[in-house]
């Protein structure tokens, strides 16, 4: 797996899945707010991803897989470089994956990194139960 982000999204159009697929860079995932410094916050998120690598619940949960952590790092660096709004948090799931969450005024968005090359995006808008979902290649 490349450690660079230049290939991010390049494989997205070739990935068939149960969900409609689109490249990460085909549209912005989050609103960009240039009035706030973005890089330090993404830096903290990247640190959090690195911390996740060492986490283990100890109560029966599956620890995040190295592949999911690698994928989360790639995604975080790519979104940082694109100056996307930083996620509100990054959390390990109980199922070996890594979540980025955005709690936006008009929507909740989450990206679940399931492996080194794959992430699932889910968006639900305020006042709606409909969930938009698609897969991105990393």
């Amino acid at each position, binding site marked *: 797996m490349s450690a660079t982000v230049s290939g991010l999204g390049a494989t997205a159009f070739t990935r068939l899945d149960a969900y409609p697929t689109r490249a990460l860079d085909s549209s912005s995932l989050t609103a960009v707010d240039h009035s706030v410094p973005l890089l330090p916050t993404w830096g903290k998120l990247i640190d959090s991803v690195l911390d996740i690598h060492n986490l283990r619940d100890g109560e029966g949960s*599956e620890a995040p897989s190295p592949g999911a952590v690698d994928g989360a790092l790639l995604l975080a660096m790519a979104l940082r470089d694109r100056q996307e709004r930083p996620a509100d948090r990054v959390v390990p799931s109980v*199922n070996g994956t890594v979540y980025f969450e955005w709690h936006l005024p008009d929507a909740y968005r*989450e990206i679940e990194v399931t492996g080194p090359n794959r992430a699932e995006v889910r968006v639900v808008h305020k006042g709606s139960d409909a969930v938009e979902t698609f897969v991105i290649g990393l």
Partner: protein
Amino acid sequence: MKAETDPITEDEWLIRIVHFDKFTGRVPPVSPNAFEPRVKGEHADTTGLSLFREACLRTPEQALDVIAPDKRTLKGLVRVPMTLLLDLRLTARTEPIELVPGHVVIPELNSADYAANKAGFVTPKLRLAEVASENVVLRPSSS
């Protein structure tokens, strides 16, 4: 206090144990993924997401008796009302365990259904987390 054999009523509150990494200093403090069923492992949520009836506990902290003593500081507690479950068309079913009275599961939030339809769980996870964030009983004391 109620006996765990007593019927679950609409005015009850349910306690959920939440690992420290699902809490943050941001708003909302509790991650929606604190309500994600475990799909694999010894504690997979095959029959549904695990909670406790507050009415059956001496104190909410009694729920932590299911956790090994040296790991309890890693856990927080949140509470959600039964009325929220009903709003979300969820139910609570008694599933007694040895260590703590009042154990229930939300059968609709089980591991098999989650694995088959993650998108369908986003809204209930989000709503549960929003209400849980306003009803944090205990924050983890260590991480």
